[in-house]
């Protein structure tokens, strides 16, 4: 079953190597060999990462994947917006728990020096 597009984007970007690849492609198109150069991994491994990014709609490349440059499809600001929205969502969840804690707190501390043991 195919995950929804947004889930695929998040999954694709959950990997630090793939985030790095996206960051490099934001500067300009690059070939698979160029992308593989800074990593201690094979071109095949980078191709696998690119496949995940491609399936998520983040990058595109031509048939002759080894030679033709990889192109970043998603606008980086778009990605940032998604990252920020998820970060915001996590902060909101955290603060809703804090709302609950605040509601459960007595109006004055149990003792001036802190909690009784």
């Amino acid at each position, binding site marked *: 079953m195919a995950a929804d597009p947004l889930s695929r984007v998040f999954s694709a970007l959950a990997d630090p190597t793939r985030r790095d690849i996206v960051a490099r492609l934001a500067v300009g198109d690059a070939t698979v060999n160029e992308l593989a150069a800074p990593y201690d991994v094979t071109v095949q491994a980078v191709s696998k990462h690119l496949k995940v990014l491609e399936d998520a709609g983040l990058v595109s490349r031509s048939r002759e994947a080894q030679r033709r440059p990889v192109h970043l499809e998603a606008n980086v600001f778009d990605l940032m917006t998604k990252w920020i929205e998820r970060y915001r969502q996590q902060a909101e969840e955290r603060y809703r728990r804090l*709302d609950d804690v605040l509601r459960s707190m007595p109006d004055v501390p149990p003792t001036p020096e802190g909690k009784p043991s």
Partner: protein
Amino acid sequence: MTSTTHHETQIVSDPDVPLVRIIREFDAPPEKVFRAHTDPELVVQWLGPRGLEMRIDHYDCRNGGSYRYIHSRDGEEYGFHGSFHEVRPNELIVQTFTFEGMPDGVALEKLVLEDLGDGRTRLTATSLCDSFADRDGMLSSGMDVGVNEGYAKLDELLARS
């Protein structure tokens, strides 16, 4: 402003400085919000991400104090630690923050509480990172530990906007 207003968290991400700012209002006075940030028995109840267990190693919230806590799930542990630089009751907490998976990285965090009257407080939490790469890593880091969490909610949210 009515007392039933829902105060959704706001996030400000600066394009020129590698910081993230969180703004949120609470229906509680600054004294309580401050205590919920400084008493480890209260902190442990809300600070950890959903689905992860939170354990406090130590949490000594005073000038020159330090903290360390661990999030864990399925045997995987994520440690965090830092120092408290300036702690002013009901007003301000300045602290450092390091994710132990990236021990060279450190963020400077400033938490400001503003008394809005009527038993309400505005919290402004600013995290200043070393670099944009660190800041973006922090923004996207939630995805590493909880890729499958919250999708439904997020999708709902995006669908509504």
